[in-house]
């Protein structure tokens, strides 16, 4: 019985003490990690020495010597490798922004179509989602590029619709040229946006006070659309259009969008849209019937139920996976390298081939993409904490 009377904590042998064990495991892990890291370091320096190379970013300022088909910043073949990589970075952001825009538009449309009561509409949306989702993105990029855009006629027989020329060299569009007092248009846009925000505030305050609703969405939208035109009109319409002209061999003037960009944009938005459509459908279906029935019982119209009850609650569920789809789209834009669209990975690959600086280039890639994903995940954390249901 004496053992049971003993009130002191029984002595646990040190090898059975969880704290000792945890420290031992972590010590072993640290030692193993340091050993592996050291081994990698030794190997890398031995290999680099054998190849007569050094680690460093001194290549950054050297002249690149190759041309880039599309650049948002001034670039010539005598610019530096660093400039080339920055050009690639901006091109990645460009394709990502446009891709996100179109993928969201298509995705939301298809997602809502899938929920349509119209059998044919919902079936077409289902077929779209199930077909596109199950074909590799890279194959889709090749199909758009190799089977749709490349067989188009040359610039001389380009398909022409009102100043837009589509050929196997890409899309040539009229470009607006702003001169003189064109800032009035911009001022009109800003004024329209500010006006719309003020209008929304006023409409809300009035509704809270008197209960009368005001169609601030359509009026605000009209403000944003028409104010820039008003501004330009007041300034005496200082806009001319640079329309593409068919020369002897090629189209000149206007803006040219490369076929690589078009193929990548279509493939990325169509592919990502099929995932976004599923997210939208799941989000809307996740709003419980009780909510819409209660709103109906309060006498809200169908459109008001959708706008005020369903969508705000569905968005809470939709936005986190949507953000990770945006991140996926940005990462998938790296497939550009397969059709030679000059994005960050393609430019990095070209520089890698010319300079042999494998470790440095891979580091640049990792830093850029990891920062992008870090930004996205911090946004999602912020959004989740803001949107979390506050319960008792």
């Amino acid at each position, binding site marked *: 019985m004496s053992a049971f009377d003993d009130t002191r904590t029984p002595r646990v042998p040190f090898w059975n003490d969880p704290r000792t064990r945890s420290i031992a495991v972590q010590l072993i892990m640290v030692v193993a990690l340091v050993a592996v890291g050291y081994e990698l370091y030794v190997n890398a320096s031995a290999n680099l020495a054998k190849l007569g190379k050094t680690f460093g970013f001194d290549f950054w300022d050297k002249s690149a010597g190759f041309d880039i088909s599309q650049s948002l910043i001034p670039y010539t073949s005598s610019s530096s490798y660093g400039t080339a990589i920055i050009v690639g970075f901006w091109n990645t952001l460009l394709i990502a922004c446009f891709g996100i825009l179109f993928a969201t538009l298509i995705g939301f449309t298809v997602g809502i179509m899938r929920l349509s009561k119209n059998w044919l509409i919902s079936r077409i949306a289902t077929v779209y989602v199930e077909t596109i989702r199950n074909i590799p993105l890279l194959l889709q990029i090749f199909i758009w590029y190799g089977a749709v855009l490349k067989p188009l006629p040359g610039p001389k027989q380009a398909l022409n619709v009102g100043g837009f020329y589509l050929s196997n060299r890409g899309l040539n569009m009229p470009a607006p040229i702003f001169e003189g007092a064109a800032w009035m248009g911009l001022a009109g846009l800003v004024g329209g946006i500010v006006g719309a925000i003020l209008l929304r505030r006023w409409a809300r305050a009035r509704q809270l006070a008197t209960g009368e609703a005001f169609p601030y969405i359509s009026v605000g939208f009209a403000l944003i659309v028409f104010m820039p035109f008003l501004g330009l009109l007041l300034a005496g319409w200082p806009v001319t259009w640079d329309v593409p002209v068919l020369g002897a061999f090629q189209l000149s003037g206007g803006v040219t969008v490369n076929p690589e960009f078009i193929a990548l944009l279509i493939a990325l938005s169509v592919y990502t849209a099929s995932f976004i459509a599923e997210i939208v459908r799941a989000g809307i279906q996740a709003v419980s019937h009780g909510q819409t029935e209660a709103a109906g019982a309060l006498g809200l119209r169908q459109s008001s139920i959708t706008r005020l009850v369903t969508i705000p609650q569905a968005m809470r569920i939709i936005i986190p996976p949507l953000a990770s789809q945006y991140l996926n789209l940005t990462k998938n834009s790296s497939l550009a390298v397969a059709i030679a669209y000059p994005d960050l990975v393609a430019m990095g690959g070209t520089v890698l081939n010319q300079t042999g600086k494998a470790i440095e280039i891979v580091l640049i890639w990792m830093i850029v*993409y990891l920062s992008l994903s870090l930004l996205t995940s911090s946004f999602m954390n912020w959004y989740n904490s803001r949107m979390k249901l506050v319960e008792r």
Partner: protein
Amino acid sequence: MDHSLAYVRTEDAPILKPPANLVGVRGWIMANLFPNWSNSILTILAALFAYWVLSNVLGWALFRATWTGESRDACVVEGAGACWPFVQAKFAQWIYGFYPIDQRWRVNVCFFVGAAALIPLLMPSLPYKKWNALFLLFAFPLLALILLTGGHFSFGFGAFISFVVQFLAIVAAFLPLSVFGIENGIKSAKPGLILVAVGLVLRVLSYALGFELPAIFDGVSTTYLMALLLMLAGGAWGILQIFGAGNQASRPVLRAWLFGGAGLCLVAVLLKWDFGLEYVETSQWGGLLVTLVVAVTGIVFSLPVGILLALGRRSDMPIVKYFSIGFIEIWRGVPLITVLFMASYMLPLFLPPGTNFDKLTRVLIGIALFSSAYMAEVVRGGLQAIPKGQIEAAQALGLPYWNTMNLIVLPQALRIVIPGIVNSFISLFKDTTLVTVVGLYDLMGIVIAGFADAKWASAQTAPTGYFTAALLFWVFCFGMSRYSQYVERRLNTGHKR
């Protein structure tokens, strides 16, 4: 009760048929296609669109298609559709790549064995799931490796066997600790442990300081022999102690020791053994073979590593936890294509000078690391779904960590994440197309490479090839996604009312 009041009905009114426009085919069409004006217009537009797509696709793929022919001449006809003879001529290459034609039976055996082992695993009603899974995870990869490459690998076979024997002897000397508990175990194992320790000291002395005893037999190091004998004696002592005690707890320990040792030696022998198979370089592999090799390697490797990483991410030990988080987030944060570039350009720089893997192996390493990070997140989802009460109950019963995980948490968690695992296999399967960019010929890569063949150059060659490749991928991925949905429905039954 008085029923004589004239206005009270004494029998039911006859049941009328529902209006004809609400039931049957007509009712269905009215409700689902033409409920009102705006929807009717939408329906007509959608029907026109569907007709346009279908007539174009079917017309191109079937009605206007070329079905027979020996070369491009059959396909360069004005207005002709798909060029199916091209697919017939190239199909074997799309499956096997440049694998030697007389050796293709080896690929077929792998496909067949893989399918024969996988299909029963996927059918929930069949028994022996554990053995089936073990076969697929361990035996099948070994079989495929030997069959596909030809086996007969050159590696330090003698050194490996010697290492395994010494390792087993040392483990055997420690076995009493595991059977009798640490305190009693040390008592009974002490002589064995001392013998092993002396043997180890001898080995270290001869390895680090060049210490050698005078030679007895020609060509054999006496120090090595002495050390080996000492270790074997120590191991034998440990085993004898366990047998002497006749303890019930000793059986599983002994079994694990024996099978582990035998397994290691068997693997070494099989890898070394000359089966008389011709050596086939991995650069000759291609097509569906490479696609499946990459995807299956990725998933087989990522399962155990992903489980470990997921457990690590939920661990209380900060170093283990932050290492797992860092590993997972780094691989998940970068695009696969940069991982593949990393594997093919940067990895060789970090290997010991002189060692080099072929391109496929390097890509496989990259894919395996990449998919482990994704698998870890899938498994973590399952782990989080297990109520904390399960772990607490296991702890209250006195189960140690690994038993809690192996017996309580993982069996439940892994069952939940089967759909997630299938889904990550689908995306891995689609992602294998990226290996084309670093110069391997997977299914898509080899289809595209075939377009360059002058014998088949026609306007319809590329569309036909793309269409077939897309169709093949679609069939695989759609099938798998249907399976995953089926499992999900099966697993959900508990929550349905």
